[in-house]
């Protein structure tokens, strides 16, 4: 089944063979940002998840980074 990988270190994700890759914010908070307000964080999080959904709906022939 299709899997969207949300992660910070894209080169590693590519090296280990993930096919649908969504670059996230940072290692300790991939879907958040403590420097921002909670509302802004949630908006960032939502955008990343929506990107992931889009990736899950996209036909690909090889590894792709969605951002």
């Amino acid at each position, binding site marked *: 089944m299709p899997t969207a*990988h949300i992660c910070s270190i894209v080169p590693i994700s590519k090296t*280990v*063979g993930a096919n649908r890759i969504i670059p996230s914010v940072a*290692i300790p908070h991939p879907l958040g940002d403590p420097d921002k307000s909670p509302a802004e*964080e949630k908006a960032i*999080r939502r955008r990343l998840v*929506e990107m992931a*959904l889009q990736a*899950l709906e996209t*036909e690909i022939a090889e590894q792709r980074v969605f951002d």
Partner: protein
Amino acid sequence: MANKIRVIHCLNQFFGGLGGEEKGGLAPQWFEGPKGPGLLVQQLSADIEVVGTIAVGDNYIAEHPDDGGREIVALIEAQIARDPDLRPDLVMAGPAFAAGRYGMSCGAICQAVQEQLHIPAVTAMHPDNPALDIYRQALTAARAGVDVMGMRDAVDAMVRVGIKLVAGEAIIPSEDGTIPRGLRRNYFADATGAQRAIEMLLRKLNGEEIGTEYPMPAFSRVAPAAPVADMAKATLALVTSGGIVPRGNPDRIESANASKYGEYSLEGLDRLSAESHQSVHGGYDTTYANEDPNRVLPLDVVRELVREGRIGRLSETYYATVGNATSVKRAEAYGREIAAKLVNVGVQAVILTST
């Protein structure tokens, strides 16, 4: 005089003198003492006594993949029960040279003997033998030539490696002429890492052979799965390697090199919180994840998207493990198991988050 090393030698129908291709389906048969190449084994080492020989047809194990190795083990156990002096210190199989079916047979036998009888086993084959695709990591295999012209050298190598195995000595491909198993083993070098790095750089600068201690791997690739036509009609599951678990870590997932993954319920939860969940991952600063676990496992926005109809359904079970120092092999195993469970409950797509 020291006791001789007792060997049981396994070979195929041809080298056992029982026939050719037509006898390929021969079930395992026991013979007292050495046969064929086994006689050469005894000739080449005064320390070895071949107490028995098992001949099995080249096709037999291929036709009995699950039971074949076990049958050989049972045959050996039966002989030992009959006469305890037949208990071997070592099992030898082959040499199989480049013969694929014979190689598979030797591989299965050695693996079974090692795992079920806990007796060392050694074989010999050509480095291109197809059996190595399956058995490479399990086998101590001396390097042999392509065919029976290399019999003497192959048996000689097998004998030397076998004696070392029995003595419990470490087997090193470059020293002992074995086929690399693809396993990494620690040892203490004469020089420090810093000294070795400098000498290695100098070799590289001088255009000499570098002698890298870690050749770069080629990671395996998986073909991309077909997309989901419309996530609004699909069931999504969440998985994370970021170590997000229910507060208290009920399954005691380790902070590094996790020996397990957890299966947890999201029922009744609209979002994760510092009270309900925590991060047990030892490889990153978990302060932010502990304050708000949605930063690693985005339950809050996923729930919203389900309510809005952008996602059909969220599976109420999520999977979590810790990706810190967890070896790729283990992670692959977890992935396979989790995938099977998800497929079973009708999940069609996964969002995997990592830190």
